[in-house]
């Protein structure tokens, strides 16, 4: 069975970026690859202005693993909003 993926918003602590990375996008990508076997998890957006972090399609296990990583503040499942 293929594990279901859902979109998660990953909040990162900008100041916690390890020195080995040249920029935050690189760090976000590496963080994503580290929790995703075969790099199956896909990044949707990298945010820079209103949020430090990214959104990605993750399995529940990958989201859980991500939440435990150094520099990750929160991993929130995507929410649906409706027009008023």
């Amino acid at each position, binding site marked *: 069975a293929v594990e279901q993926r859902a979109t998660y918003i990953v*909040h990162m602590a900008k100041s916690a970026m390890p020195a080995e990375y040249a920029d935050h996008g690189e760090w976000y990508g590496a963080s994503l690859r580290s929790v995703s076997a075969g790099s199956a998890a896909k990044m949707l*957006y990298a945010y820079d202005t209103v949020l430090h972090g990214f959104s990605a399609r993750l399995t529940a296990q990958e989201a859980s693993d991500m939440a435990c990583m150094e520099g990750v*503040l929160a991993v929130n499942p*995507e929410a649906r*909003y*409706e*027009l008023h």
Partner: protein
Amino acid sequence: TTRTPEFLGIAGSGQGLFPQSGTAGDVVVGVLDTGVWPESKSYDDTGLAEVPSWWKGECMAGTAFNSSACNRKLVGARFFNKGYEAAMGRMDTDRESRSPRDDDGHGTHTSSTAAGAAVSDASLFGFASGTARGMAPKARVAVYKVCWLGGCLSSDILAGMDAAVSDGCGVLSLSLGGGAADYARDSVAIGAFAAMEQNVLVSCSAGNTGPGSSTLSNVAPWITTVGAGTLDRDFPAYVALGNGKNYTGVSLYAGKALPNTPLPIVYAANVSNSTAGNLCMPGTLTPEKVAGKIVVCDRGVSARVQKGFVVRDALGAGMVLANTAANGQELVADAHLLPAAGVGDREGTAIKSYVASDPNPTATIVIAGTHVDVHPSPVVAAFSSRGPNMVTPEILKPDIIAPGVNILAAWTGKAGPTGLVADTRRVGFNIISGTSMSCPHVSGLAALLRSAHPEWSPAALRSALMTTAYAAYSGGSPLLDAATGATATPFDYGAGHVDPARAVDPGLVYDLGTRDYVDFLCALKYSSTMIAAVARSREYACDEKKTYSVGNLNYPSFSVVYYTANGDGSNSAATTVTHTRTLTNVGGPGKYKVSTAFAAKGVAMDVEPAELEFTSVGEKKSYTVRFTSKSQPSGTTGFGRLVWSDGKHNVASPIAFTWT
């Protein structure tokens, strides 16, 4: 918007209160919605100066949308669909455009309401005719399409907000919401926090789940939360019954009229094969029992306009759409596909009673056009979501109400005015209702204020809008609630109805900055990680030695919550709740005196000091209010108002008391 500028006092001579050039065009209102129909005359850029050099927005090309669609009015158009397509699968580009193109109409309506250019001879089938214009007609518009046919996903919303703030928008307008969620998990609240930090005012709709209590969305204190009210315009339609009785409703139907001779009238519940037949849901009416007749349908569950389509599909000749108790007497007009009238709960009950009691009931419907100077107005819309604030009861929400019922503004060329697939009509303007419509009114007014006071913070702008809002009609009687017909409360309208002509000169403001909001989060006992998730920085920390109080957030309103001491529904002793506020002078020198009025039994209020004297602009003065209450049963509420006045300015704050 052919009427709201006049209703708000910013038409004619009222326009002179705000800059007409220069800084007026330096404000860009970013609208996160369903996109834009750039061919609408509401985006005509005649007379506008060059786009400011600091603007970083982009006009993204895509399906049926060229990058040349932008101009000096529509200065940016982007779309964000990665989250949507990841969740819903690849979109059907026959149904929706992978571009900023508005396939729905909602985004074109909201953005033109906020800052659309003036368009003469605007109307919907002749209804509401006049010159349509945004509240800030000289401001620029940038659209960020984050909502699609299947909804608005938070990953796309955040991407839109990220771009809008980075592009240089001064005001963001979001007519969307989810349920009430903790701020650290609410993407709109998180995006709005960063926007606020970068001096961007974020205006959001309160939601349409009224009149039930505690139904608000977008309640973060750094968001301006906007409820909806009516304006002084109506679209009457008359239902004449065979017994000689006439009832007044509303309608925007513009096709072939019913014959002069009365037609048989039936109640949907009696001509249906469904137990919920009264609601005129698709496929539930029996054509043999409906053909050639007027059908009474009850409001609820399905879209109002869809009920008309269902009646027409079942060969009905007309429809009376009856409110239920939940909607009360509020009348929302729709561009129905057949002769139809929406009527209030009382009228609906009377009509249904006639249909049930007369062996051969008959009726006819007469559409009567547009009426203005309707009073009382404004009335709080029944659908407008209400307080108390479920996330933080100590913050009174909504902040304010603005026109949101039967609003005419620009529309998409891709969909008819009802939005139904079966509606093949195409219109340049449409009339719709919702807090989605009131929100961009406030967004546009905020842009106007920003052009007049570019140095004010988002909190100062909101404070000006709130403390000058009115909660009573010109004769002095309090604003009414359409849901009940009774007096409305601050849980319904917040500070009151927006009054931009007074907001431009508020005298004093309650200002707030990032550190104040972080202190607020500390008072909520947020962990450092949660604060960092909201505020994007680990540099913000709570001081363990400091006592934080939610009530001390320098908010322009007061929500005083008494928590039950005994857990048995009673408070055993008098309790004092203390709130501290700081006022900043944005007017001339003046001596302000405080006055309070409240209708809450067993409450005593003490303001210290009772006088504040300001000698220079920017000067700050603090005061403390002690609210002392004797025991009250849990669930009791009370309301009041605190006003600082120098004889010229009245700086008013609503007060809500809750015993819980």
